[in-house]
């Protein structure tokens, strides 16, 4: 039985990136792709925590289907072998489908350890001065986005 399961798992793995996958009840097929790099391509993981506009939430297998929009912050991936990966995302989308497949698409993403704390602080400082000198609504909105990103960056790098 166990052998059979591993064989069928192998089969699904092989077809994962070409066809729509039908995940197992206790597994999720997790895709995490950014404009600059692909981190996971339909791999099975235990849990994923994502920051979204409606608050940060954790995704476990069999999560109720939903859509969410990412906020700058750290995506935490708990892999099946117990490893934990922290990846900073700028922005993007999360899709959870009713077949337990999860897609996180980001414009830009980088492992947390690639963030430079002093550069992050500099970004935040610049954003804050931009916000105080903003005159139009649009400038203010842009600057407050920048402050939000800067705060998230500093928090992630610490």
């Amino acid at each position, binding site marked *: 039985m166990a052998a059979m399961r591993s064989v069928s798992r192998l089969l699904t793995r092989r077809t994962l990136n070409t066809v729509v996958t039908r995940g197992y009840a206790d597994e999720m097929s997790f895709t995490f792709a950014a404009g600059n790099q692909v981190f996971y391509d339909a791999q099975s993981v235990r849990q994923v925590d994502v920051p979204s*506009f409606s608050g940060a939430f954790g995704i476990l297998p069999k999560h109720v289907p939903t859509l969410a929009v990412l906020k700058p912050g750290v995506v935490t991936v708990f892999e099946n072998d117990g490893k934990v990966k922290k990846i900073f995302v700028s922005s993007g989308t999360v899709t959870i489908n009713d077949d337990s497949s999860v897609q996180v698409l980001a414009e830009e993403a980088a492992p947390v350890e690639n963030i430079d704390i002093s550069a992050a602080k500099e970004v935040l400082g610049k954003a804050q001065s931009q916000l105080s000198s903003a005159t139009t609504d649009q400038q203010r909105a842009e600057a407050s986005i920048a402050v939000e990103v800067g705060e998230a960056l500093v928090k992630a790098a610490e």
Partner: protein
Amino acid sequence: MLGRFGNLVPVVAQNAPLQQQQRGMATLKSISMRLKSVKNIQKITQSMKMVSAAKYSRAERELKQTRPIGSGATQFYEKAEIVAPQDMPQKLLIAITSDRGLCGAVHTSVARLIRNELNADNQNLKVVCVGDKSRLILQRLYGKNIILAANEIGRLPPSFNDASKLTDAILKSEYSFGSGQIVYNQFKSVVSYRTQTLPVFSLAAVKTAPKLPVYDSLDDEVIQSYLEFSLASLIYYAMKEGACSEQSSRMTAMDNASKNAGEMIDKLTLTFNRTRQAVITRELIEIISGASAL
């Protein structure tokens, strides 16, 4: 009458032995000139092939990185079974091509697909032309249907920034559409690509989708932001596929051109040598017959 006489002159000239000799000499020179130009062309096509081979390998590497984005962005549309709304017939077509030619039929096949759609119905269709090539093909007949035209594409590999600038322009173009399609060339292998479409939907279309209630806790703003980002991802993905197909197709086209030039060079060299031989022989005959006449 004069015209007919004019027509006769070259025939007469060709038949005259003296003229023939001069023509032979001239041919020798013109053949060598043609030979030189064909060799130059071959050099150009060969180097273009090398350049596009390098660009192609990079484009293919990058395409592999982009495929999960494309499939990820289409998954929701497929799984939520969204269809174009009946009460909003306005459609948007986005043609993904580039500024550069000499790459077979990649651009024309995208433009042809759009032209067929426009032939069927040009009232409710607007086109966004990405790349000068699709614009040049479509503007003569359907210029009025173009709402946006983008260029400066193809020199550098497409970036997410390109895609998001385009998406921003589409969102701010004030054209409200019910559904749409991105028309692009999907890369299959070095020798083949397929002209494909990706679906695009408006907020209204998504909200009326029968399977949407399956998805939990959605408000309009989330869906709107989600769709905006999806559109950018899809355009980015389509641009990558298009760029890869274009480079591979250019590589094949230039390879064929180099081969054809090679064949022409062989033929011309043969004719050149034959003609040269003929000239030498004739000169010898002239000398000998001149000597024997003494």
